[in-house]
């Protein structure tokens, strides 16, 4: 499967959005995702990871550049104003 260039999209946002974001990621055509718990600080203030409303999740999606860009655009529009959000893309080699 060492196919065209893949990207790893890393989304860091509020835990409360986990289910919603995952649904959207799948609806936009991702073939998989990985979620882990995190805490952090950014423009929206410190999230201590000690409280459901207060903790972050990291959602990672490996996919084509197009898919990752689509998800970024959607999430930026939908969540950027009201929620903590970080969106990163990294080119990766998918080895399986």
């Amino acid at each position, binding site marked *: 499967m060492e196919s065209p260039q893949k990207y790893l999209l890393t989304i860091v946002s509020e835990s409360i959005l986990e289910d919603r974001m995952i649904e959207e990621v799948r609806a936009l055509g991702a073939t998989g995702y990985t979620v882990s718990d995190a805490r952090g600080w950014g423009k929206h203030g410190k999230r201590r990871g*000690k*409280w*459901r409303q207060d*903790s972050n999740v990291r959602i990672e999606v490996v996919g084509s550049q197009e898919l990752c860009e689509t998800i970024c655009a959607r999430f930026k529009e939908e969540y950027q104003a009201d929620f903590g959000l970080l969106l990163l893309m990294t080119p990766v080699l998918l080895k399986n």
Partner: protein
Amino acid sequence: MAFEPVVLFFLLGVIAGLAKSDLKIPTSIYDALSVYLLLAIGIAGGVKLAESELLPLILPGLAVLAVGCLIPLVCFPVLRFLGSFPRSDAASLAAHYGSVSVVTFSVAVAFLAQAGLDYEGHMVVFLVLLEIPALVIGILLARLGMAGKTRWGKTLGEIFFGKSIFLLIGGLVIGYAAGPDHIGPLEPLFFDLFKGLLAFFLLEMGLVAASKITDLRDYGKFLIGFAIAMPIFSATLGILLGWGLGMSLGGTLLLATLYASASYIAAPAAMRIAVPDANPVLSIGASLGVTFPFNIFVGVPLYFWMAETLYSMGG
């Protein structure tokens, strides 16, 4: 007046938080304890309910509900016009103060146990009834002046199957089904350990509250004043209503405490989804950082004293 050592644990947590102690209670323990408290409160109410009649509760229930809807409708204009808060923040705060806090209720229950007073089992039904309407009113208030769709389906699902309502009702049903006859084997966990685990939970809440107080500092004195005056006002309504409905002194204290308490579990979750442009730091800071400690240290004894005075005059 009854001295309740349980609140000292909250203080301990606050001190640890402010002193930046490395004391931490893991989130998973916090989550498990909150499941426990909700179930235990529900079960205790259910068992009591199994011994009482349900029909005569409908009218008082409606009265309790009506006053419960009044509270956020009072909060909103106060915050919006006196406090000059943006619409969505005022609405979200109104929802928090209209809804109720199970842990504050639990502290009042512990207070009554210490004072040797009983209360009506259906208080837990009222607790359940009062959690929801203020949230719906808050969302409506936020939406009034605004375009755009509310995700009502999602939001109501989040509220009704949100864990606090769900576990309270679940506990009520299980306690009712088991009744005093079959609850025995569950008593050591759900009754005997209640106070000890509440103490543990309060320790953790103190840690969290400490950080919220710090967050709040930047938002000025009006909000802090509101977070103290509003509960006293609401509690007064509760005392008058409880007395008017002929409830026991214990029941009236619990009703006053319910009205006075501000939600910090159900409301934040619901508001974050339904009114995302409201600043959660404001509402959690006020409810958890100010109103909660005010209620458990000063409020509950104060409301008790007020109710006692009224009852001794009225009696």
